[in-house]
């Protein structure tokens, strides 16, 4: 199967502080990859670089074999991005679901979902609305189309933001701790949606602290710490890792 996302030797530092030190990661179509690890290990930064919210300092990034940035000189050289105009087309490749939803509060639920497809992707309004309504129905929110984000619970808002991302038909969906701002009850309804997407073979990278969920839903789990991938494998391999640090981390989260 083809490589949907390919990251090689990704480096990123904030104010001299190395957040990502040397990350290589390949995601194939239909794969579900979870990234776990302690706070400050660089998980979110990795997603933000892949979603073009941050520019990486070194290494390469490509979607579907098309280069977003490539290193200058050798493989670990400073990243050189393609021109801005070309960069914009890559926004169609991925969607990102944020920890705190970031819905547009002045737009109704329906407009939140429809606006980008219409304005950015040039999809006819009627078609976009049909897609949006069927997405809402899928996510159990058909009666909320005309509501405003402030009238929804956190779990509902997060489901709307998933619908908003899906409406653009991305190749891959990134989740940046999608349930960390939710209480356990609401967490369940969001995880259910992601589980459903996994069943439909949506390609996803999920940064999460929900261990049992990651174990259940992922094809592959990555354990990150100090800006490096410390361990990588199937859920079974990772949960039975011989590395003490991995065991310690998983044990701690499972116990809490």
């Amino acid at each position, binding site marked *: 199967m083809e490589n949907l996302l390919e990251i090689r030797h990704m480096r990123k530092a904030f104010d001299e502080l190395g957040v990502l030190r040397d990350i290589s990661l390949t995601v194939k179509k239909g794969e579900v990859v979870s990234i776990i690890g302690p706070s400050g290990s660089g998980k979110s930064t990795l997603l933000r670089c892949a*979603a073009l*919210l941050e520019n990486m300092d070194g290494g390469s990034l490509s979607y579907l074999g098309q280069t977003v940035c490539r290193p200058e000189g050798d493989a670990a050289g400073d990243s050189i991005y393609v021109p801005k105009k070309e960069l*914009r087309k890559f926004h169609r490749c991925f969607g990102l679901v944020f920890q705190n939803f*970031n819905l547009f*509060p002045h737009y109704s639920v329906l407009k939140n979902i429809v606006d*980008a497809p219409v304005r950015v992707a040039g999809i006819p309004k009627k078609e976009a609305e049909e897609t949006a309504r069927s997405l809402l129905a899928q996510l159990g929110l058909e009666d909320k189309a005309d509501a405003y*984000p402030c009238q929804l619970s956190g779990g509902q808002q997060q489901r709307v933001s998933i619908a908003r991302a899906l409406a653009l038909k991305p190749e891959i969906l990134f989740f940046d701790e999608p349930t960390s701002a939710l209480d356990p009850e609401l967490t369940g309804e969001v995880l259910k949606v992601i589980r459903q997407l996994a069943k439909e073979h949506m390609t996803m990278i999920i940064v999460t602290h929900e261990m049992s969920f990651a174990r259940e839903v992922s094809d592959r789990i990555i354990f990150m710490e100090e800006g490096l991938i410390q361990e990588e494998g199937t859920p079974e391999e990772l949960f039975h890792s011989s590395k003490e640090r991995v065991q310690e981390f998983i044990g701690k989260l499972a116990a809490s």
Partner: protein
Amino acid sequence: MDLGTILLQLGSGLIVSVEIFFLTLLFSLPLGLIVAFGRMSRNGIVRTVTKVYISVMRGTPLMLQLIVVYFGPYYLFGLRISATYRFIAVIIGFAINYAAYFAEIYRSGIESMPKGQYEAAKVLGYGRMQTFFLIILPQVIKRILPSVTNEIITLVKDTSLAFVIAVAEMFTVAKQIAAAQTTVVPLMIAGAYYYVFNLLVALAMERIEKHYRYYEM
């Protein structure tokens, strides 16, 4: 002079005040947005220039600014001042002064917007202009309405400063009648006119605020 005549004469002055009021808003509200962009610019020179501009506009009396705008062309360039320039000078003076205040209000609103709104827009593929005008600005307007209302109410009363370059707005007229007739009645009536004017302004702003109450941030 009977009361009817006084009311009528003040009324014609009021029209001039209302003209100054609306024309000032018409020019200073958009100009303020441009100044706010300059104030937040990544270019250090642009930022410093706008900072000095705002500082001077807020730090010196509006009355003095009106005098400078009106007499400046003559003293600086020896240009003859035409009769129509009097009113234009008032509008220029008010607009550049109020733009400075509005710019700082816009800036406070724009800087208070959470970063996540920009990021969500970027990931969805909105361009920079689309992000600002579709996503950010509507929310900024809701946030800054109370401060803008304050500023607009001050503007109603500030229109009386146009007397300094002898534009016959309401307060100028009231003072002339008061001096000629040795009575304070015209001044009291002018006060009542200003009050009613502001009452209408406050009501209008309240309606606009209500309009934006359909969502919370």
